[in-house]
Every structure is written in C-alpha cells, then in structure tokens.
C-alpha cells in the first residue's frame, strides 16, 4: 500500500500520459491487433460495428429506393452492380429479399449487439468497477476475433450464384432449410457470433463478480454495469438455445433431417455440394425422385426455439442502452439517479419477463390461441417495469440543472423514442390487434423506434460520453449536436410514417407494393420516407467526421470532463494498460450529485470522506469487522 501511494504521486505529474506510465514492451500486433487490453478490444468492437453499421445502412437505402421508385435504376451505383443483383440498374426481387434479410441480421447481430454489449461491455465494466482488466483477458480477445470472420462469412453469400440468405432475419422453415448456400453462411455466421457473445458474457459476469474494487458493493455499481451484468445473464441463457436451433436447421439442410420439415412436404434437394458420400447420394435420390422428405418435424418448433433467444435478444440490445442513459442523465442533470434500486429491480424484472414472452411473435403462426393469451398477458406486464424506468428517468431530470451536451441530447431522445416504441409494443402485444397489424410496416416502425431510436441513440450517447476516456480527446460538441439534430429529426420523419403505412395494410417484406391497388396511394409516403432515410443515413457521416477530426484536432480531455462520480473518471485521461494510476477504494454510490454538505456539486466514489463523516465511516467499518 505504501509503495502504491508513492507511485501514485510519481505518476500524478503526467496525467494525460497514462500510456507511458505503464509502458510495456509489446509488439505492434500484440498491442493493437491481438491485444488483450479491454480498452483496445472495445475500440476494435467499435470499429468493426461502425463498419457494419454502414453496410447495413446501405442495404436499408437500397430497400428504400425500391419501395419508393420500384423498377427505377438506383442512382450512382445501379449500373455498376453485377447482373445477378440488378436488372436495368434496379434491384431484382431475389436481391431485394437478400437485402432485407441481411439488413436485419447485420444490424442486430453485427451492429447493435457488438456496440451495446461488445464495445461498452468491454470498455465500461473494468473501468467502472475500478479494476485493471477483464477477469480473462485472453478469452476476451478471442470473443472479438470471432466477429470479423463471422460477419464476412455471412456477406460472402452475396457472391454465390444462389445469392445470400433470403429467408428473412428470422430464417423460418421450411423456406430456410430448403434454401441454398447463402442460408448456410447465414447459419454458420450466427453460430460463430453467438459463440463470441457467450464468451464475452461469461467474462463480463466473472469480472463483475470477482474483480470489483475494494469497498465496491454490488448495489454501489453504476447502472451501466448493472445493465450489462443482467444482459450477460440473458446472453448466457438465451444464445445457446439459438445455437441448438441453428444446428438443427443446418442438419435439415445438409443431413436431410426433418426437425422443422412437416409431413408430406415436397422440396427440391438442398444444395449439398459441401458434402460427400452417403449424404450426396441421399440428396441426389431426393432430387431424382422428387421424394417426400422424412417428415415428422414441425416448422413452428423453429419459431419457438428462435424466439426463445431472439425475444431476450431485444432486451440484450436495449438494456445496456438503458444503463448508459441512466448514467448520462444523472451526470448532466447534476442530480442523483431517481430510485436507484428500483431501476435495478426493473431491469431484473424486464430480463425475467423477457424469457417468458417469446410467443407474442407467433400469434399468427397457428399456435394454440389459449397459449397466445398467456403470452399476451406476460408481454403486457413488461410495460410495468418499463414504465418504472421511464418515470425514474423523468424523476432524475426533474428540476435538475440540465446540461444539454451531445451525450445528454441523445439520452433524452432515447426516452422520447422509447416511449413511442414502447407504446406501439403494447398494441402488438395485444393478440387481437396484432392479428390486424402482423407482418405490416407497423412492426417495422416499432422495431426501429426501439432499436434505432432506443438502442442506437443510447449508443450514440455513450460514444459522446465515454469518447474522452477512450481516446483522450474531447469530441467536438457542436458537430455532436448537429449530428444529433439531423439524426433525431430525420429518424422521426423516416420511421413515424411507417406506423401509418402499416395500419394501411402495407406488407412488411413486399418487393413491389404497388401491384396492389389499395397500396398505390402510399407511394408518395414511401418516397417521403426514402428521402428522409437517405438524409438520415448521410447524417451519420457527421459522426464519423467528428470522430476522425477530434482524434486529430480535438481538445485534450481532462481526467473527469463531465464532473461525474463513477470510477472510470478516476483513471488517467487516456488510460494505458492497467487502467489506474492510483489505488481505488470506493466509499459511496455512483450518483452523489449536489451533495448538500459539499462545495462542488459532485462527490466521486473514490474520494475519501472528510472530517466527521470519515470517523463515522471508520467506526462503522470497525464494528463491522469486529
């Protein structure tokens, strides 16, 4: 302890040079590529996911172009795309379904989950619990390095003759298993990224349970850490079920089993070019005689297994955002988080309920209606913990001394859009209403309000909030605010009208809606949405420009730029390997803003109590140990 304090004084001088204080002789590759430092891994997650964000965004714009101007050549790139994708510069029906499938899959599995869980989980957990790294740094490195190959495997589908996966992001059978090699790449890719998720989640939980700084109780951790902890539980218990389902679908495709294939289903033999021997023989047999597949399976079984993971997955995507927003709002309202424990219990309740509501995706599947009713009730109950969170956020900013930073604006936008997305969720949870709006653009509007408006705005908020600690530079606030206003306005202009399309009966996955007379009246609205979507897409370049500009020309960040309380702000401005240059001891919770006995309006977790308070604290501890 003595030497540690001495060291702390020594390094205090060069605050922003944390890197040099803990210099290690490691090669470039070990330091930046195959690094085991949680902060480098977080940056790698950020880079990979932002790349996929633009890939998925491009897919979305191609989809939007087709819906607004069906059959017209895509501007700029339409004529240079290969003939298998476009005809006369316009997206073909086959390519359209591939885009639709991969837009959903990329955005969910390669953007939101890696950003919300991979990036923030890696960056925030060790810093916010005051430790040097993850419990198992090497496992952490593996969990990232599965992501790029998994993503690229899926994208290779576009270069097959039969195209990429086109069965929707849900991959429902019998369509899924009877599709070609694109579906295979999709399945393998999800299996790999699922494995990466499980490795990450295992590590997060072990880290939070085992490596908290001295004095840090579970109920003194910031909400971000709590949210990530509970998210990790969801990942650990949900993802393996998807892995099992994926294995069964792969078997249906290549081993000609029939887990999900019903009796008397006649399909052409699946693509079996990857297999040899008896398996090929069986495939050829099926093809020749157009035989019936074995049968005995149930397509709905896939839906149950898929949604058993994929419903908790929506909470995997939104819970970290809820945690981030709680921290950002409290910091910029200069007030303690309203109802700290209630917020944690609400997250737990959402996570628990998240596991027993998957059937609400299946009201129209032919499932027993009685079962539908139970799923309807459990789903609507989720509104209760969600409302607890909303009202507690409002309570947090109520009469606060609000600072409208870019981070805070995005957090406030999260609340607004999450309310809209949450309320449309209640519509869909109600089985009779859902029968009408099922598979329409209403669903599309809802999912984008919670995933783009909710999760992604929270992620933006987190990026603005933690960027100084990540890179040692402040992001440009004015550009940040511009990015926010453009994104927020055009987000709403893009997705709000989709509710109206959906109520008007516009199908969710349709290639050309105007073959139906009753949908022709919606073409102007679709064009409006497309233009808004294009502007929304291009607004994101402001963020990229801001990041690049600030990395080079940004102001040097101080240790604690937002005057926040949690432990990551005790670390040097740009922490190196090992994170902290002082010993961390925790004396209080993370939300002690505007403490009446203090001159400054914040009271960091690591600051030693002064005077009377200290004696009280010490006696308390003494009696405790005795």
């Amino acid at each position, binding site marked *: *302890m003595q030497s*540690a304090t001495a060291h702390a004084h020594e390094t205090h001088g060069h605050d922003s040079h944390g890197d040099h204080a803990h210099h290690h002789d490691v090669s470039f590759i070990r330091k930046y590529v195959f690094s085991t430092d949680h902060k480098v891994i977080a940056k790698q997650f950020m880079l990979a996911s932002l790349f996929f964000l633009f890939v998925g965004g491009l897919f979305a714009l191609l989809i939007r172009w087709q819906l607004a101007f069906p059959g017209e050549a895509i501007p700029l790139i339409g004529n240079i795309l290969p003939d298998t994708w476009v005809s006369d510069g316009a997206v073909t029906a086959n390519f359209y379904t591939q885009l639709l499938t991969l837009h959903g899959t990329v955005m969910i599995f390669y953007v939101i989950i890696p950003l919300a869980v991979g990036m923030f989980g890696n960056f925030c957990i060790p810093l916010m619990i005051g430790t040097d790294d993850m419990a198992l740094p090497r496992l952490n490195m593996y969990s990232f390095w599965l992501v790029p190959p998994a993503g690229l495997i899926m994208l290779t589908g576009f270069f097959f003759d039969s195209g990429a996966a086109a069965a929707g992001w849900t991959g429902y059978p019998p369509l899924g298993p009877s599709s070609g090699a694109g579906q295979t790449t999709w399945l393998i890719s999800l299996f790999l990224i699922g494995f990466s998720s499980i490795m990450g989640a295992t590590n997060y939980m*072990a880290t939070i349970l*085992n490596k908290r700084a001295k004095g840090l109780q579970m109920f003194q951790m910031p909400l971000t850490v709590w949210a990530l902890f509970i998210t990790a539980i969801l990942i650990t218990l*949900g*993802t*393996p*079920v998807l892995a099992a389902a994926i294995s069964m679908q792969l078997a249906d495709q290549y081993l000609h089993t029939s*887990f999900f294939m019903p009796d008397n289903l006649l399909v052409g033999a699946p693509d079996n070019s990857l297999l040899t021997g008896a398996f090929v023989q069986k495939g050829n047999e099926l093809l020749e005689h157009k035989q019936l597949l*074995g049968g005995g399976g149930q397509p709905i079984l896939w839906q149950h297994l898929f949604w058993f993971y994929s419903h908790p997955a929506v909470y995997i995507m939104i819970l970290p955002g809820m945690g981030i927003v709680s921290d950002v709002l409290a910091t910029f309202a200069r007030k303690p988080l309203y109802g700290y424990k209630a917020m944690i219990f609400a997250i737990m309740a959402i996570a628990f309920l998240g596991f027993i509501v998957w059937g609400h995706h299946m009201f129209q599947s032919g499932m027993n209606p009685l079962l539908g009713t139970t799923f309807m009730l459990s789903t609507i109950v989720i509104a209760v913990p969600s409302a607890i969170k909303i009202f507690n956020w409002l309570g947090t900013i109520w009469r606060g001394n609000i600072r409208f930073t870019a981070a805070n604006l995005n957090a406030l936008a999260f609340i607004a859009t999450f309310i809209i997305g949450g309320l449309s969720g209640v519509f869909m949870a109600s089985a009779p209403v859902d029968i009408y709006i099922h598979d329409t653009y209403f669903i599309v509007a809802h999912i984008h309000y919670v995933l783009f408006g909710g999760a992604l705005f929270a992620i933006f908020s987190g990026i603005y909030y933690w960027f100084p600690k990540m890179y040692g530079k402040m992001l440009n606030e004015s550009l940040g605010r511009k990015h926010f206003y453009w994104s927020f306005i055009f987000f709403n202009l893009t997705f709000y009208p989709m509710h109206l399309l959906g109520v008007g009966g516009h199908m969710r996955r349709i290639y050309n809606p105007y073959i139906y007379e009753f949908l022709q009246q919606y073409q102007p609205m679709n064009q409006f949405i497309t233009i808004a979507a294009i502007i929304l897409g291009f607004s994101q370049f402001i963020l990229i420009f801001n990041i690049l500009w600030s990395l080079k020309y940004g102001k040097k960040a101080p240790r604690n730029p937002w005057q926040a309380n949690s432990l990551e702000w005790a670390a040097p401005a740009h922490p190196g390997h090992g994170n902290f240059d002082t010993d961390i001891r925790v004396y209080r919770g993370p939300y002690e803003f505007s403490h009446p006995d203090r001159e400054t309006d914040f009271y960091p977790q690591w600051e030693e109590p002064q005077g009377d308070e200290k004696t009280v604290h010490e006696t308390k501890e003494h009696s405790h140990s005795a």
Partner: protein
Amino acid sequence: MSSGLSLAHEPVTKVAHGKLAMWIFLASEIMFFTGFFGAFIVLRNSNLELFSHSAAELTKGLALLNTFILIGSSLTMALSILNLEKGNMGKFKLFLGLTILCGFGFLIVKTIEYSTKFSHHIFPWTNVFFSFYFLMTGFHAIHVIAGMIPMTFMFIKAFTKKGYNHPVKVETLGLYWHFVDLVWIFLFPVLYLIFPAH
C-alpha cells in the same frame, strides 16, 4: 501490473476467475442441450409410435458400457485433481492418463455404434428420432473431444521438465468433464431406455 498497485486483488467471490467463468459457461451449456431436449420432447409427443419403434433399434448394451466408461472417467478425473493438490505427481499423471483413455474408449464405442447403424441403413435422415439420436450424441461426442484436447496438453506438459502444477486449471477442466458426463446421464435414458407407450 508493473506499477505495484493492488488493483488485481484476490477474487471477491473467493472463486478463481477461470473456475467462476466455467460455472457460468456450464449454465450456458445446459441451455444448449436444453434446446435439443425441448425439441425432442415436442417431436416425441407428436410421433410417439415412431419414436418407440426406432428407439428399439438402438444398442442398449454399448450405451450401458459407455455410461460406465464415462462415470469411471469422472472418478479418475477427480482422483487426478486430488493427487495434484497433494503433490503426488505420479498418481496425477496416472489418473489423468486414465481419463484420456476413457475418453478414447468412449469415442471408440461410439464409432462402433454409429457404424453398426450405418450398416443397417440407419442414417440421420431415416426418421426424426434418428435425426435426434445422431445430432444429440454427435454434439455430446464433440464435447468429449473438446475436453480431451486440453487434457492431453496437460498430460504432455506433466512429462516435461517443468512439470504441470496448476490444480485450479485441472479442477476447472474437471468441472467441464463432469458436465459432459452428466449430459450423457440424461441422454442415455432419454434416447435408449424410455419407451413411449403406444
């Protein structure tokens, strides 16, 4: 860390990081097999007669033999940990080697079982019961192999000059090995022994 800070203190839960992570990972593994067992229950109930006829084709004797081999390997695994903790390197190597042998024995019996099935023209696509049979036992066998790989590394290292002295790592692997054993304890009755009533 080079700095001499005491951030990296003893685990809060008093359980080593790797061991704690293994327990969490095993929870995840349980859910993986739960996916298969759940699907099995659903499809069994809609194909009772088929499942009953097909289950009768399986070789109970070989499965019983494999059950003994795996339970035996769990015992030798536990004994090897115990001996490493006590510092009896010789016995540690003996019991770890026996565990690896049991793993090989299990896989050999499994191969015999599979090839008998193939020679009787029973394949994964024959019917949905055999689809489950091949997929579930196949994934279990992959788990056995996955356990044997680090075990073999430990075994080889134990014979080097430096020797092998990480009881916690062996214990962590032991947790995994017992889990793989446990999965078989469920697979054996579910696939081989339970006959649905007609």
